[in-house]
């Protein structure tokens, strides 16, 4: 019987117990476990409490990203509670023999940036992390998903998880982007979430397919898979191809040379949905007329074209009274009037970073927009590279200078203002054009107002002090 990519990865990871005969849940083997300082301390406590050890420390990798400062990294950190959390992770990794890329390590960075960058993430694997954006790794043809701390403890102790088999959801992209630099992967995924809603993918793993997808770079594919969770999906997947294999080849933790090429042969042969495989659900999205997307509300489905105006709650809700109330609430929080052209809305801050859009290509694209220009006097703008490696590479080609000359702050790597667990936050009422993934209330700081955009849109908005159609710039 023809199988989807998810089904192939799933079947090859189920450990025989008797439960699968009754329809589940299934015991699934986990190939890689990524951990960070915020969602792991209680899991290690649980292990100690029950005198358990980590089954496969060699398959577990740790870094510090969520609450690390992006300036002033010498210990003791100014923020003492963050300091304790960071030191707790270091202590736990020492005690249990886990590889840690700590705050001083040249491989430190956002967990979903460094996994792929170091070749820890490989096609066909199962990968988990106590972070919902683990879906990012699906760009490699990997079944990767976020888990809670109890499950982190479970994976540490057993290298397995009990799971119900997710449903499969195919999103077929057709058409071509009219502006290869101005219309980005971020716009593609925002438009999907806008269409299917924040629970449109619930209970499913989305496989992104079609020629439009195969033309994307790995960075762009990661942006798309990253935001699968914003559509409520368990994970996102893209079948690996030559672009994937070329990206991985030679990376530190990947198999090397002949051994790698043998793996590639296997991946090429096996890691794709069969032609006749049936999905539980599928849609087609044509991107010929896709415009740059900007979010206006407080969840990632509240998005419009940059050429449009902020919708009226009735218009957004399409007859759903609960959604109407939610849009009304969102407009009040965001402090904007329906009917306002989005390009008329002034911004105070710009954040280029996060596991969605902080890789070298993201920074490079944004730098093209700002080169030779100056950030508006009314705007404070910041670039937070996704990892120390991204930062070093960017500096090698002079991007730090381009950003700094334009008036951007150039920081050390981490999650930073995407979730504001460090001191990089918005003040109440401040409005931010952000390349991150969540525009939830208070996400970037209590009372802060987040508008999700692509890196090039964020860059252009920084220059102008309000949203602009970046197609006119590139």
């Amino acid at each position: 019987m023809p199988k989807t990519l998810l089904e192939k990865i799933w079947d090859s990871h189920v450990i025989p117990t008797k439960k699968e005969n009754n329809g589940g849940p299934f015991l699934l083997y986990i190939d890689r476990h990524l951990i960070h300082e915020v969602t792991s301390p209680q899991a290690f406590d649980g292990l100690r409490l029950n005198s358990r050890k980590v089954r496969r420390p060699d398959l577990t990798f740790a870094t510090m990203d969520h609450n690390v400062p992006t300036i002033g990294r010498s210990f003791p950190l100014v923020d003492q509670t963050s300091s304790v959390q960071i030191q707790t992770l270091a202590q736990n990794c020492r005690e249990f023999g886990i590889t840690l890329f700590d705050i001083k390590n040249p491989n430190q960075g956002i967990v979903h940036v460094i996994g792929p960058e170091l070749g820890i993430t490989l096609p066909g694997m199962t990968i988990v992390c106590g972070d919902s954006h683990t879906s990012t790794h699906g760009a490699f043809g990997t079944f990767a998903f976020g888990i809670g701390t109890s499950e982190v403890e479970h994976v540490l102790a057993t290298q397995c998880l009990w799971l119900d088999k997710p449903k499969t959801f195919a999103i077929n992209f057709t058409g071509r982007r009219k502006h290869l630099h101005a219309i980005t992967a971020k716009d593609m995924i925002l438009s999907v979430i806008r269409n299917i809603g924040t629970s449109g993918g619930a209970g499913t793993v989305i496989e992104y397919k079609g020629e439009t997808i195969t033309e994307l770079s790995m960075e762009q594919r990661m942006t798309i898979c990253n935001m699968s969770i914003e559509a409520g999906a368990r994970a996102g997947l893209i079948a690996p191809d030559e672009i994937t294999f070329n990206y991985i080849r030679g990376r530190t933790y990947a198999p090397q040379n002949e051994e790698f090429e043998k793996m590639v042969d296997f991946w090429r042969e096996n890691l794709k949905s069969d032609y006749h495989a049936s999905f539980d659900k599928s849609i087609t999205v044509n991107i010929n007329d896709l415009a740059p997307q900007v979010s206006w509300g407080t969840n990632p489905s509240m998005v419009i074209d940059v050429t449009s105006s902020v919708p009226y709650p009735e218009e957004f809700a399409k007859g759903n009274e609960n959604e109407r109330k939610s849009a009304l609430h969102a407009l009040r929080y965001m402090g904007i009037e329906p009917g306002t052209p989005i390009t008329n809305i002034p911004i105070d801050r710009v954040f280029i970073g996060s596991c969605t859009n902080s890789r070298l290509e993201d920074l490079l694209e944004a730098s093209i927009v700002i080169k030779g220009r100056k950030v508006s006097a009314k705007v404070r703008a910041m670039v937070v590279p996704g990892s120390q490696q991204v930062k070093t590479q960017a500096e090698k080609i002079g991007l730090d200078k381009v950003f700094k000359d334009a008036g951007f702050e150039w920081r050390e790597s981490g999650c930073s203002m995407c979730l504001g667990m460090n001191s990089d936050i918005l003040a109440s009422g401040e409005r931010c054009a952000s390349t991150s993934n969540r525009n939830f209330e208070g996400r970037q700081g209590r009372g802060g107002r987040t508008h999700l955009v692509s890196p090039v849109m964020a860059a252009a908005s920084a220059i102008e002090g309000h949203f602009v159609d970046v197609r006119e710039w590139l």
Partner: protein
Amino acid sequence: MEPFRIIKSKAIPLDMVNVDTDQIVPKQFLKLVQKTGYGRYLFYDWRFDKNGKPISNFVLNDPKYAGRQILLTRDNFGSGSSREHAAWAILDYGFRAVIAPSFADIFYNNCFKNGILPIMLSHKEVDFMFLNADDMEIEVDLSNQQIIMAGPKIINFEIDESRKKKLLEGLDEIGITLQFDSQIAEYEKRNSKFIASHN
């Protein structure tokens, strides 16, 4: 984990869709290294103003709802971040069950790990419960998968058998999995080439 027993309580109605885990526990409270004590941070930014004073028109601050053990809410509850702190806060505040038409996947899972019962009902049933939430006594009987209200009005709900069993017995899931140690070891042996880390 405490075994799940029958709950008898009224519900607190939180009439909002898409309540994300950033609202359930804002990020400034994720820096703690323990599992307990998060109840005071539940819905913090909605419950307290920036000076820490209770915001009077938020439901949790309404004295008539004090001490209720059931949270009644709308679609897609618990979306966004995977933070289990959200489940810890709900439990620590005193809730043992959350009723909604739908939940986000990760949050739904996290509930079961902490002895909280998330119940999915139809929109119509949830609407009915909202209409009557203020005064209606509710009995949640997990064994029989029933919600029993005055009348009596009975609503049956669906739940996965293995999850139900774990809640009712308060089982240690890791302990159960470790009983499959030989199967896991066998899997690792068979697939060592694919699993191996290369450095």
